[in-house]
């Protein structure tokens, strides 16, 4: 019995599931972790990590191409895709080994195979029923497509195929200007492809502040990436040489490949969730801010719960649910406090509210913004990157949104999220020192400006 009955039984070993398992084991609970594929899930194998490896290879390519601007004599000769994949696999495998060792060292029982919820606290895998005092659903998400648009994995592909391409396409249409679409557009452009993004919404990365979207679109245009925003897709036809994409209105674009990046749906179908009476909405599992579903003892974490689909949200869900189950009193972090990074060239990062959302929440008179241009930031000049730090604050109140654009600004979001989550005011930050010359000085300058003390900025 000991082998099939657990304190915590986790279904799915992606970011949410494995974090939950690790934390639960750390708290002394006996944990079973069901996974049909590989420990680590989407993020480690076909998501965050391999895409960011591609993006770093893209950065290396751009750096070699532009080396002359810095006085370095180097020539860029092309992309060796098998080499890129070997590098990518090397990174993934190293982290995978680390994770596997960690799961083993914490004494977690890994159950290999596809699981199905067959009772309120029961998951059946390959005919064996496993039970848990608590059950955690963490089955993640999959790449969606549009009705009538068939993914053939050759000409019409998703991110999963895009990560395994053995050559650089000469031209690509990216359907969807969200984070994933923009990241692949950025990679392929750095690798030398002609790239067109087709997006029905009026702007790229529409969840971000309008200023960030505009800056990314401008930077992309300079790099030769075409953004067809406000342009609904109509259909795609595979031809002998590639694919012809028809836009609403009839215009067509030809390309070697079509990447479908129209969002990710929850992987919750046919897993027994509905049968067991779990409350769901449009395929997502509903959970409260402590991860509790409507069924006593059943929790849900990660991408199957409506909200931001991000790995670190999954980690946080998993940890929180483990602590909740262990009887601790963890503090939930609302989605607005979760940092968001788009790892394009240039990067876009944010936490908290957009200007529009802040105005909606507090009224236009109660909201104040400051934008600090990276043109005044020495380190950004050294990197030859452009962009800004934009702060959204309540008048005489805390900073409620931080928005950054520029190469490498993703790393600044660590400080930004502390300011947001600790509800810092401009004058809490203004007297503190940022190291010179760093890009994080731009955060300091923005807070100086918001506090009425701009140093390296006109105003």
């Amino acid at each position, binding site marked *: 019995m000991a082998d099939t009955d657990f304190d915590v039984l986790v279904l799915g070993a992606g970011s949410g599931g494995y974090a939950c398992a690790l934390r639960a084991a750390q*708290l002394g609970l006996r944990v079973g972790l069901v996974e049909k594929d590989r420990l680590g899930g989407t993020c480690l194998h076909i998501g965050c990590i391999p895409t960011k490896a591609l993006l770093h290879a893209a950065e290396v390519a751009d750096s070699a191409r532009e080396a002359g601007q810095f006085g370095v004599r180097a020539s860029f000769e092309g992309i060796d895709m098998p080499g890129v994949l070997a590098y990518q696999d090397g990174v993934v495998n190293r982290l995978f080994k680390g994770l596997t060792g960690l799961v083993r060292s914490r004494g977690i029982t890994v159950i290999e195979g596809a699981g199905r919820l067959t009772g309120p606290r029961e998951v059946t895998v390959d005919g064996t029923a496993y039970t848990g005092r608590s059950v955690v659903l963490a089955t993640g998400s999959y790449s969606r497509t549009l009705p009538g648009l068939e993914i053939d994995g050759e000409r019409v592909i998703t991110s999963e195929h895009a990560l395994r391409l053995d050559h650089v396409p000469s031209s690509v249409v990216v359907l969807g200007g969200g984070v994933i679409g923009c990241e692949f557009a950025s990679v392929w452009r750095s690798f030398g492809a002609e790239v067109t993004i087709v997006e029905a919404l009026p702007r790229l990365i529409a969840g971000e502040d309008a200023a960030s979207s505009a800056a990314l679109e401008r930077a992309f245009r300079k790099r030769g990436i075409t953004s067809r925003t406000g342009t609904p897709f109509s259909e795609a036809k595979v031809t002998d040489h590639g694919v012809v994409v028809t836009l609403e209105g009839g215009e067509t674009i030809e390309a070697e490949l079509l990447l479908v990046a129209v969002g990710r749906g929850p992987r919750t179908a046919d897993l027994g969730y509905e049968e067991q009476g779990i409350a769901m909405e449009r395929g997502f599992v509903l959970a409260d801010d402590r991860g509790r579903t409507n069924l006593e003892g059943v929790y849900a974490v990660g991408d199957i719960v409506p909200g931001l689909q991000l790995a670190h949200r999954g980690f946080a869900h998993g940890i929180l649910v483990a602590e909740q189950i262990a009887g*601790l*009193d*963890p*503090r939930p972090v609302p989605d607005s406090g979760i940092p968001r990074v788009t790892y394009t060239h240039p990067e876009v990062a944010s936490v908290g509210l957009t200007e529009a959302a802040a105005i909606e929440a507090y009224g236009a008179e109660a909201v104040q913004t400051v934008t600090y241009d990276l043109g005044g930031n020495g380190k950004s000049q050294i990197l030859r990157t452009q962009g800004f730090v934009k702060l959204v604050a309540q008048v*005489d109140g805390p900073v409620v949104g931080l928005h950054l654009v520029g190469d490498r600004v993703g790393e600044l979001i660590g400080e930004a999220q502390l*300011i947001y*989550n*600790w*509800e*810092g*005011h401009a004058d*809490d930050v203004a007297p503190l020192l940022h190291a010179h010359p760093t890009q994080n000085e731009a955060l300091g300058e923005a807070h100086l400006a918001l506090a009425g003390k701009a140093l390296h900025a006109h105003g």
Partner: protein
Amino acid sequence: PDRAEPLSPAAVRVLAKPPVRKLAKDLGVDLATLIGSGPGGVITRADVEGAPSPHRAMPERYA
């Protein structure tokens, strides 16, 4: 020292660093009711933790 008037929000803010303010908020402690024991009346973490809290249980420290 006794204080007749509660502090203004701005004054309270200056007297407590952001993580302490956040802790107070999480515990439901009203900083304006506290008398800071730190230098210059600064409200310390101990002041907040020692105050009556509607959400009594502090997150335990776990090993």
